[in-house]
Structure formats: C-alpha cells, structure tokens
C-alpha cells in the first residue's frame, strides 16, 4: 500500500530479466535508511485527532524553534491543551517511541535489500607435478530471496504503517495521561484552597469559643471540642497539601520538564461546559480512528500477507544460483552456472506455517477483543461523563445556591439573635463543604471526559461556561445588603 512497495512490485519482472549482475548493482544503490520518513504519518494522525503539534527531536534546527514555543507555553499558567502540547513536544518517552518508526523504517529498507551474494573460493596446491594452483570460486545468490523480495518489501511497508498506528496510539495515550494528571493537579490545588477555608471557619469557631470561654460563658469541654475540630481540619488541610507535590511531579514528568521550573497551573478547575458535542457521531468515528484499533487491523493484514507468502515459499525450491569458476592445474578456466538445492525432506515449512497461522488467529482475536474494548470504553466513559455532568450540575444549580441561601437566612436569624454565632459559622462550614463536594464532582467530570476523549481518540471541544468561584472565599459584596450601620 505504500508507494515503495508498489515500486518494488513493478521492479520485480525487470530484475528477473536483467539477471544477477544488474540486480546486484540496483540493490547496492538501495541501502540508505531515512528514519524520519514514517513520521509525517504519525504527525498527520495526531493533528487529525488532537489538533496539536508533534515533533521528533532529531538534532535539527527545528528543535530550537520547538523549544522556544514550549518555553512560551510554560511561561503562562497552563490550560489543559497547553499542557498536552508541551508533553507532545517535550516528553522524552515519546521521543523514544518515535525511534520505533526508525526501526520499522530500517526494517523496510532491509526488506528491500537482496541478500548479499556468497563468494566461496578454494585454492588447492598439488604436492607433485604438474604444478599449478587449482582455484575454484563460486559466486552464489539465494534465488528465493530474489523472487520474493517485492513481497517482503510490501509486508515491511505494511509493518511501517502498523508501527505508525502504534506510535500515534502512544501519543494519544500520553495526551490522555497528561490530561488526567493535569486535572488531578488542578483539583488538588483547588481542594486545598477550599479546605483552607473550611479549616479557617473551624479555627474562627475555635477562636470565638475561646473568647466565650475567657468571658466565663462556655465550658472548657466545649472549648476543647471546638479546638479538636479545628485541629482535625488543620490536619485535613495538611493531608490535602501533601497531594500537591506528587501530583506536580507526575504532571511534570509527563510534560518532560520535571516538577521544578516556573510552570504553573490555574488554582481552580474550569466549570463543566454547558453543552457537549454530538457524542454518537464521535462514537462512530472512534471505530475508524482509534490508532490502536487500526494498528491491530494492520497487524492482521500483515500476518495474513505473511502467511500467504509462506504458503508459496514453502514449496518453492530453496536454491542458490550463481557462477562457478574453476582454474584447472592445466591452466584451463572452467566457467559455468552453479546451482545448489535444499531438499525439503526434513523441514517442509510446516512449523513456520503453524506459527504464522497461530499468530494470525491470535491477532484476529485481539482485533475482536479490542473492538469490544473500544465499545466498552466509549460506553463507560460516556456514562461517567453524563453522570458526572449531572452531579456537578446539581451541585452548581441546586446545592451551592441552597447552601448560600442557608447562610444568608442564617445571617438574618443571627441579626435578630435567633441563631448563635457558632451556628452561623456552621452554616458557612456547610456551604464550603458543599463547594468541596462540587470540586470533586467537577474533577470527576474532567477525568471522565478525558477518559471519553481517550476512548474516542479525539479531543472534545469545550463550550466555555461561566464558572462560580470555587476557592471558598465569599463572593464580593455577597452579603453586603445585610450589613448594618454604626459599627
């Protein structure tokens, strides 16, 4: 299917006609490997699916331009697409994976090369006259190799395509991993911010209880209880803070820049987008564009081709043809064709055929399994996106406003001394705890969406929604109308 395999197919009859010498000359000319030749296929696949750049660092001038682009991205707080872009350009594991393309490309070149001819020679020196050296030389070329060279080349080319799919799949996997790590890190920051507010509310409760205790109004028991609660929440903050460094390490590793350096992520998760793209259409696309699925399909095709080739070659006489030259002691030169023939008595190629057949069946089964996997992954991820969207939406449109309403009404009750300050702070505590639940729901949504993007081998476009503040700080002037004068 690649152009090179077509070329070789066309070249085959010519080679047979021209004979050994001409072929040798042609083959000698084909020994140069261009490892990057297969890369554009990967690049195009990634652009089609992610709309993002990939770059194979090969010590060219382009490397510096890519580095500058990455540095630009890193200078701003990263959004999720920027994080993925940095990883695609910087992640060293990906660079290692790209070398698979070089290996496949080399295999392809190798497949297109004739086996080197074998020159055997024997010099025999008689111990008596008539003197003169007996020279025997045989230049032989494996005949089968010659005949099936185009077919092998075709298979190797197909394998290059398979490797391209596998590399593209790894790029997409990395993108998904980066996204997941990104959401985890932003969520960790966001959770810490909210928990700090939760802890502050508890600590203010404690401080107020301390003042009430100092005034002789509450018992040491109540003060100890409030202090214990505040301490518990302080510990919860510490536990949440401890999640940030590992999350940053993980994302930094995937970005290929490490946890150090000046890069940053926003402090708050983006809100759940209001609308979702047309998922059924994307789902259909998943079956035609999942690179891992394409890779297994290609693997089946390659094995089928290889098995077909083996069916032919096993009955084809394995023979070396060549030119034999002998210099008799008498001084005569004997020149003539040589032929050596392998007799298929012990090894008739059955074992090789069995191996290939097993591999083919294995590959076909793997293809069926992967098809099921894709279906299940898409289904599960879509369900998770839907439920996470519903939960986050319910938080945003119902629970958060209700909790804010409870706080506002609690202030009204507090104003008339119908509610104590500690109960008022508890209402605030419940509001911030709801925010914490909301952040978890939003994180779950983005993680589910990342899983769906991975399942669909696509980047889902985002319709930006207005985001409520999710750091637990009160919205500016939120309760201002309850303010009273004279203080």
């Amino acid at each position: 299917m690649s152009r090179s395999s077509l070329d070789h197919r066309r070249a085959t009859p010519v080679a047979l006609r021209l004979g050994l010498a001409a072929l040798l000359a042609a083959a000698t000319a084909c020994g140069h490997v261009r490892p990057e030749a297969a890369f554009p296929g990967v690049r195009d696949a990634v652009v089609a699916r992610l709309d993002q750049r990939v770059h194979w660092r090969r010590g060219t001038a382009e490397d510096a331009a890519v580095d500058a682009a990455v540095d630009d991205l890193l200078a701003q707080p990263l959004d999720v697409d920027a994080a993925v872009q940095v990883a695609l350009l910087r992640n060293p594991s990906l660079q290692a994976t790209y070398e698979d393309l070089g290996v496949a490309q080399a295999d392809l070149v190798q497949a297109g090369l004739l086996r080197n001819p074998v020159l055997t020679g024997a010099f025999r020196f008689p111990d008596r006259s008539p003197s003169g050296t007996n020279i025997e030389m045989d230049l032989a070329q494996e005949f089968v190799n010659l005949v099936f060279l185009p077919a092998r080349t075709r298979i190797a080319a197909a394998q290059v395509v398979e490797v391209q799919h596998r590399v593209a799949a790894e790029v997409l996997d990395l993108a998904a991993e980066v996204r997941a790590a990104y959401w985890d890190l932003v969520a960790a920051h966001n959770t810490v911010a909210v928990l700090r507010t939760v802890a502050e509310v508890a600590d203010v409760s404690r401080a107020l209880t301390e003042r009430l205790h100092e005034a002789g109004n509450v018992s040491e028991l109540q003060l100890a209880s409030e202090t214990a609660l505040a301490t518990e929440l302080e510990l919860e903050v510490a536990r949440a803070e401890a999640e940030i460094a590992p999350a940053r390490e993980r994302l930094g590793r995937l970005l290929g820049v490490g946890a150090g350096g000046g890069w940053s992520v926003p402090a708050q998760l983006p809100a759940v987008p209001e609308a979702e793209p047309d998922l059924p259409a994307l789902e259909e696309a998943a079956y035609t564009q999942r690179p891992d699925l394409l890779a297994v399909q290609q693997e089946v095709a390659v094995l089928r081709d290889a098995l077909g080739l083996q069916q032919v070659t096993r009955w084809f006489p394995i023979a070396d043809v060549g030119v034999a030259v002998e210099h008799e002691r008498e001084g005569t030169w004997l020149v003539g064709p040589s032929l050596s023939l392998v007799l298929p008595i012990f090894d008739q190629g059955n074992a090789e055929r069995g191996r290939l057949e097993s591999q083919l069946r294995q590959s076909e089964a793997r293809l069926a399994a992967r098809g099921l996997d894709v279906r299940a992954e898409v289904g599960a991820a879509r369900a998770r996106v839907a439920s996470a969207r519903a939960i986050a939406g319910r938080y945003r449109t119902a629970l958060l406003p209700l909790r804010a309403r409870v706080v506002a009404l609690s202030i009204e009750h507090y104003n008339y001394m119908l509610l104590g300050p500690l109960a008022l702070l508890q209402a605030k505590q419940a509001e911030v705890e709801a925010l914490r639940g909301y952040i978890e729901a939003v994180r779950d949504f983005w993680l589910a969406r990342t899983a769906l993007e991975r399942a669909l081998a696509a980047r889902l476009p985002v319709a930006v929604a207005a985001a409520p503040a999710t750091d637990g700080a009160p919205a500016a002037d939120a309760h201002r109308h309850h303010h009273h004068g004279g203080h």
Partner: protein
Amino acid sequence: MATRRQLLGSFLAAAGASLGHRLARAAEPLPTTSTTLAPGAAVAPPPVVTPDGASLPFEWKDGVKEFHLTAEPVWREFAPGMRVKCWGYNGTTPGPTIEAVEGDRVRILVTNKLPERTSIHWHGVLLPPGMDGVSGLTQPAIMPGETWAYEFTLRQHGTQMYHPHADEMLQMAVGMMGLFVIHPREAATPPVDRDFAIMLHAWAIHPGTYRPDPAVMLDFNMFTFNSKVFPATAPLVVKTGQRVRIRFGNLSMDEHPMHLHGFKFRVTGTDGGPVPASAQLPETTTLVPVGATRDIEFVADVPGDWVLHCHKSHHTMNAMAHDIENTLGADQRGVEERIQALLPGYMGMGQRGMSEMQDMAQHMKGPKNTLPMMAGKGPFGNIEMGGMFTIVKVRDEVSADYADPGWYEHPEGTRAWKVRA
C-alpha cells in the same frame, strides 16, 4: 365623673328597651367596648373594654340572650410586621368577650367552620353537665359545618372564660379562647369606672413562620395581651381618680405574674368568684395561674404613664431564642474581622449587653414575619420591651372615647435627672 357611654348605658338600663341596645351599639365610638347589658342588669355596670378586641353582640329572643360564635381560622396581626395564622372566633383571637348578667338565661350558638371537630367549654361557669362542652363526655363533638346551641342560666358573677374541649391542646395553642364576663345583679361596692379584660397567652411561632406550633410545651417565644404584643398593645386610658378593674384570663401553659407600676391593687375576684374583702391582700404583682382568671382593682390616683407587664422578663421580649451562645462579656476583637472575611456583614453582638439590639434591628434584616426582640419608642428613647407589656395612661383630662392621650408630660422637677455624664 361618669363618661358619656356610662351615662348612655344608665339611660338605656332605665328605658329597658332592646331597641335602645341596638341604638347604643350604633352610637359606639369604639369597637373595642361592649354593648350595654340592659335590661337584665338591675344596675348597669360600665361596659367591659377588651383592648384590641370587642364584646360579642347578642339578641334578646323570648327572654333569652342569644349569642353566636363561629369557630374559624383567622389571621391576627400580633404587631406590624407579624401576621399569624390562628384559629379563633368571629374573625379574631381571642374570641369576642361575652358579657351577661347574673340571672340571665343565655343561649350560645356555636358554628364550626374549622377543618376539624370542636366544642366549647364554659370555663368556670356553673351550669348543667350537659352544657359543659366536653366532647365525647357530655356531648358529641361539633363537626365541621354544624351549629350547636348551649343554653343555661347564669347563677354567679365574675370573670369566666370559654375555650374548646375537643382537640383542646391544639386548638388553644393556635388561639381559640375568650373571656366570659358575668356582671353582678347587684351593683358592686364600690363600683368601678373602668373595666378592662385581658386574655394572656403564650405562643410558639418559630422565627420565619406564621403558624403557631402546638407541639411546643415550654419553649414559647411570643407572649400576648389579647393576642397582641408590645408595642402594638393598646394602652389602658384612665382618668385620674377613677376606680379601675383589670380582668386577666390565662389559657396558656405558663403562669404569668402580672405587675402594675405606680399603684397597689387588690385581687377582688378569681374564676371562682369574688374574693372576700378580708382576703384581698394589697399587692403590686399577682400571679395569674394556668387556667384561671384574676380581677384586680385599684384607684388610679396618680397621673402618668404606668407600665403593666408580666414580670417574667422573657415574656416581655418578642421572638427570643433560648439556645444560643451567651456572648455577654466576650471580647470579639480580632475574631470579628476574621468572621467578617468569611461572612461579610457579620457583627459581633451582645458583648456589652443586648440593648444595642433595638437600634440594630432597624438596620438589619431579620427572618420573614418575625419581630425583633425588643421594641417600642418612648419620649426618652427605646423602651426595649415586647410581648406582655402595655401602658396604663392616667390623665386628669381624657377624651370621651378614651383615645390615646400621647406621652405623659412630667411636671417640672418630678422626673429623674442626670447628675453627671
């Protein structure tokens, strides 16, 4: 020093005409006063004044005074800013005061417009058992839509009450109650010039709600005179030197020590009848027990604005919570700012006491349909009271209809003065 109304009453008593009774009602300057009681009474007593309420009209039918009570849900404004969905009689709670005279035969028609059965028990009235109004025991309950008649001859005088004796707990908790005043056939000696009737009650109306909660047994938060709270309670206006009777009835689940400033009084009657003169202790406070009435009498011989209130100090607040932190003396400086960062508009309260509450309440929003704890503006500032609180206004000159004369003006040198700031 008889009032115009008293004179008119006396005239009608002499005339002895039921037509005259209707004329008298038409001439009533205030709806809060009763009809005249002629011709059943030998001597016309001054009509009972039910502050913020009225007496129940009646018709003579074949020598029987016929009254009509309709039990029904009613809205009652406890004070501006608070309307309560109660049950009562004839559109109000407490129900209108029934006035009759010892010896009268009375027939009281009771129509039930409640969603559930009811009955009326004539609390303290001596009558045949079949008229006692205990549903299930002395009669079947009055079902919704039904009208029943109670008829009996009054064999006593004094301050009695009426209330349901079917689902009594709930129906009384939501306001079904009324006073039943039986005047003596013979003139009281000495006769009173002003005769007030006040039903005391305690309610649980949770902040932000409008319906009394009958499940509450102890933790009431609204305490009323005739289902009004100060500063919406009507003042008791009296002319200097008048003999004043105040009748208290109590169908709440709390006892109320009623305290009058400025005078000493004697308890002259209970729901059991007149108290013998020898048993009338001079007092300034009398406890009105649960399910009882007390009549007090005094001569209002000193003009001024004199307070009449329940001496349980929580009963002179409005909508007070009883389970909040005590912030008195707690220094909130530093903490207050931190709370404000979380809750803009928060202000530490109660550190120096609760006086500031009345000023704050004017600037701060409270729960719906909920009155601030303290209220009332006097000529010298905040009165800081609510609930069971009113003012007896004694004046040398009063208008014919005893209209509120405004604040008392203290003669020079008779008021407390500031010595140093």
